[in-house]
């Protein structure tokens, strides 16, 4: 049963992501990626990481995909970017090499067989609860740092998507900047 689920979702995920990478239509790519993200969460459920699965769905399919969707509205997606492909040989060889090496890296500690669990899963406790216990005891400081980072990112996103950011002060001439200031003060006076 587990095997069937694994292979099914594996095939689906790979297919979805491949489509994301290959498709020339941004909208299709976005949709297929959102689907792929949901498929990934299935693996988390299979691995008894229920909490992570839920977070995956909410954050990726909910928040991140919504961000991409909004971002896409700014761009002229109909005017597709011309994708002149680079040499496929380079791409292929590099991918294969990287893949092999990543496998090696991951299996290396297993081959060494000297790993023991730093924070074993508490017995008789459900996964979300166990995650909560570990997160708020052992990983409290990283957790708080991550929270601050998210806050910073949020403010950054708001500021950068705001007005006036389409002008670069560093690339403007002195007179232009002076004119801009003048306009602003005039606006304030009229208000």
């Amino acid at each position, binding site marked *: 049963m587990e095997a069937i689920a694994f292979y099914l979702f594996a095939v689906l995920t790979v297919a979805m992501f491949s489509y994301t990478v290959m498709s020339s239509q941004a909208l299709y790519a976005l949709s297929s990626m959102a689907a792929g993200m949901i498929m990934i969460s299935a693996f988390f459920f299979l691995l008894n990481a229920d909490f992570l699965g839920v977070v995956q769905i909410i954050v990726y399919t909910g928040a991140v995909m919504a961000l991409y969707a909004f971002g896409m509205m700014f761009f002229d997606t109909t005017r597709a970017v011309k994708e002149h492909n680079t040499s496929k040989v*380079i791409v292929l060889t590099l991918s294969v090499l990287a893949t092999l090496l990543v*496998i*090696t*890296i991951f*299996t290396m500690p*297993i*081959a*060494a067989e000297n790993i023991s669990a730093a924070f074993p899963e508490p017995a008789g406790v459900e996964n979300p609860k166990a995650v909560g216990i570990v997160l708020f005891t052992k990983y409290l400081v990283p957790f708080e740092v991550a929270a601050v980072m998210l806050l910073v990112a949020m403010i950054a996103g708001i500021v950068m998507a705001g007005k006036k950011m389409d002008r670069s002060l560093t690339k403007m001439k002195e007179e232009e900047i002076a004119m801009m200031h003048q306009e602003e003060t005039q606006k304030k006076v009229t208000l």
Partner: protein
Amino acid sequence: MEMYLYIALFAPFVGSLFAALFGASPKTLWSGVVTSALLFASFVSSVTLFVYLLQGGEPIHTELMTWMATGNLYIPFGFVVDQVSATMMFVVTTVSTVVHVYAIGYMDHDKAFNRFFAWLSAFVFSMMILVMSDNFAGMFIGWEGVGLCSWALIGFWYHKESATWAANEAFIMNRIADLGMLIGIFLLYWHTGSLQYDVVFAAVPNLDTSIVTLMGIFLFVGAMGKSAQFPLHTWLADAMEGPTPVSALIHAATMVTAGVYLVVRANPLYSLIPEVGYFIAGLGAFVAMFAATMALVNRDIKRIIAYSTLSQLGYMFVAAGLGAYWVALFHLMAHAFFKALLFLGAGNVMHAMSDELDPFKMGGLYKVMKWTAILMILASVALAGIWPLAGFFSKDKILEVAFSSEHYIIWAVLWITAGLTAFYSFRLIMLTFFSGEERYKEHGFHPHEAYKFMLWAMAPLAVLAVIAGWFEQQFVHFVTELLPTFEFHTHHVEMMLIAVTSLMAIGGIVVAVLLYRNGLLNPKLQQTAVYKLLFNQYYIPKFYDEFFSKPYAELSKIFWKQVDLKVVDATVDFIATTIYKTGEGTHTMQNGNLSSMLRWMVIGTVGLLVLAVLYVKRYDILALMQMVFPGLGA
């Protein structure tokens, strides 16, 4: 008393630094005055210390600070003022002070006036370290310091090719000898575990004679270089290229006597190995005669005096080699006074004759330069060893030593040399100041007497050249508290020896005066083989040139063409061009295109992964393959 020690040591150093501050600026009189004043302070301190020891004070031993302390090696900046170093300090500071004052007048018109005083005071500081150090390492520092200052002062007029050549020659010859000295010091440390004089000399008697002999030989090689003994003697005559005050201070009174000081200081070591002592004495006697013969025919007043210095150093080594250390020190002191005086007088003559050195072009200068002539005659008489001047007491003692220890050949050589000394000294005096017609007029010179204060500065040396010998008994009593005494067995023939020697000296003078009374000798004499041999310094410089310098130059050329250009340079060029070509070939990588940058980033990641895989420990590729591909089996 320690305060006087430090003033004596560091006053010249302060003066040197002060003058060096203005080294590059044009002449400022007070740089000379300040250095002279500080030198005078050093002189007063030295005299105070000398008197203190004379009145029976204990030798002063201080430690300024630790210099090296690693493992078993402990070398402090330690200084000692005992009878020997106090004598040396007295000699060094006296002559230095006189020379400093004199040089204010002598270097009057020189552009690099300040630089001169900076180096001169630095030399005195190094010399003080050399004589005051309480260990061989400190002595070696002073030894090298005087070598460096000597190099800078010989080559003081560096725009003259001959001056730079002479400076380099002196420096390189001394390097060769210093290697020997360094080996000697290493041997001392290796076998005694210390470099402090007292520790070393206490340990030396327990060592194997062969090792002590080796130590003595290597240390003496160093002394041979500094004191310009055969075969490392050629640099001293060439060193006369430097300004005359330098010749007076460094190449007559102080630095060249450092070798004698070394042997005297190491007397507990040398008294264990009389064979080496005999060799030293033999070499000294040979050099005394050898140098005196070269002085007979030379046509350069400074070189004549330089050869005379060489000859007198030979005398000192005879005394030191035969175990009469105090006699060597006594002659060193007396010689310093009258030889410095002689050089300064020669400086006056040079000044008057617009740097002309050939006495054949002088003659009759007595009328113009009366006082210089009187001072030089005084110094020459002292050098010749005529009673009651200083040279008589010290030189006669050396002859007595040779006779008393039954080395009659050495005695005979020294006896003949005494005659030669008197002859060449008065040949110089006659040719310069008397000798009939006034030849300088033919050459268009307008001589004049030197400044008054220069003559006054020379006066103390003149006084010392006269009276230094009178204090023989006190001196003996003073230094034999530290140095071994020497038993004379010649009381029965003492008067006879003195008479014979004095007769020889007076004979030399008389011959010189008679021969040169009416001017130059018959020029035909210059065609004889003996004259040519002596005039060309026994062809030794030529020999060195042909057999050492030229093959070395050829070898250097071969190495330059074959090794340097074709191997070293080529390697460096290859590395440089490789890097340059790599940059040329890969700069397209930096084309600013983000996708190509991404691609390179991936390649870099792959490279790092490969490295990580290669360097992870317990890397078992078979187990890994089984892990990754479980289907492979086995």
